[in-house]
């Protein structure tokens, strides 16, 4: 089950539609990292609303995606973790430390917009201080 990846402006949106196998998750990681370069994306959103379960492999893969994308110059935000899924993750001892999350797609987009705004302001600040 391949995950569709949409390009919206400077962002890539991967919207998981159903349960994923480990191989599907790894494939998503490769596809996203490749496309960050291809589309010169500045942000990545992974929508996990449809995921029934987030186990250790899924969490590790999402963490890898976020860290690899950051190394390629794009910020990642995971959106749509359901309440039951969050509960089970905490019990399992799984954290998404170092990875940004947002409630849903809308919040995720707003988060990325703020991030790129801050990036622009930081750059401007540096130029002015020169």
């Amino acid at each position, binding site marked *: 089950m391949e995950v569709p990846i949409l390009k919206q402006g400077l962002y890539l949106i991967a919207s998981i539609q159903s349960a994923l196998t480990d191989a599907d998750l790894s494939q998503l990681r490769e596809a996203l990292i490749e496309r960050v370069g291809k589309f010169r994306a500045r942000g990545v959103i992974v929508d996990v609303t449809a995921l029934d379960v987030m186990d250790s492999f899924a969490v590790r893969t999402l963490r890898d995606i976020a860290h690899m994308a950051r190394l390629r110059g794009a910020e990642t935000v995971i959106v749509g973790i359901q309440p*039951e899924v969050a509960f*089970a993750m905490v019990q399992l001892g799984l954290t998404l430390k170092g990875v940004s999350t947002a409630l849903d797609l809308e919040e995720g987009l707003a988060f990325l917009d703020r991030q790129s705004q801050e990036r622009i302001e930081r750059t401007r600040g540096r130029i002015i201080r020169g």
Partner: protein
Amino acid sequence: MAEELLVPITSDLDVVSARQKGRELAAVAGFSSGDQTVIAAAISEIARNILMYAKRGEISLRTVLNGDLDGLVVVARDQGPGIPDVARALQDGYSTSGGLGLGLPGARRLMDDFDVVSAPGKGTTVTMKKWRRRHA
């Protein structure tokens, strides 16, 4: 009641199938959707352990009655290399596979009863149960 559902585990597709069947059985047995997710997550972890360490094995799912409690029993069996040090394998962050080392200890936290029987060369059997109080 004692009907047993057997899911062979030979690929990562079977891991998904085992956790989905576990969730369905938990729903039929009246577990809340939160508990269904917890059970599915625990099954996902131990099914992946079978694949990772033993390559193949099976997961058995069944419901049981115990007084005024309904239970869901998950047994994961394999004929793999076995676990040399079960106590250590149950510690958070200990892994011989390069994983997060949260599979067994995490599954134990998710379930109410958890038991591992394993010895080198003898395979591994993990038995875990989740209970719910039956409402009159």
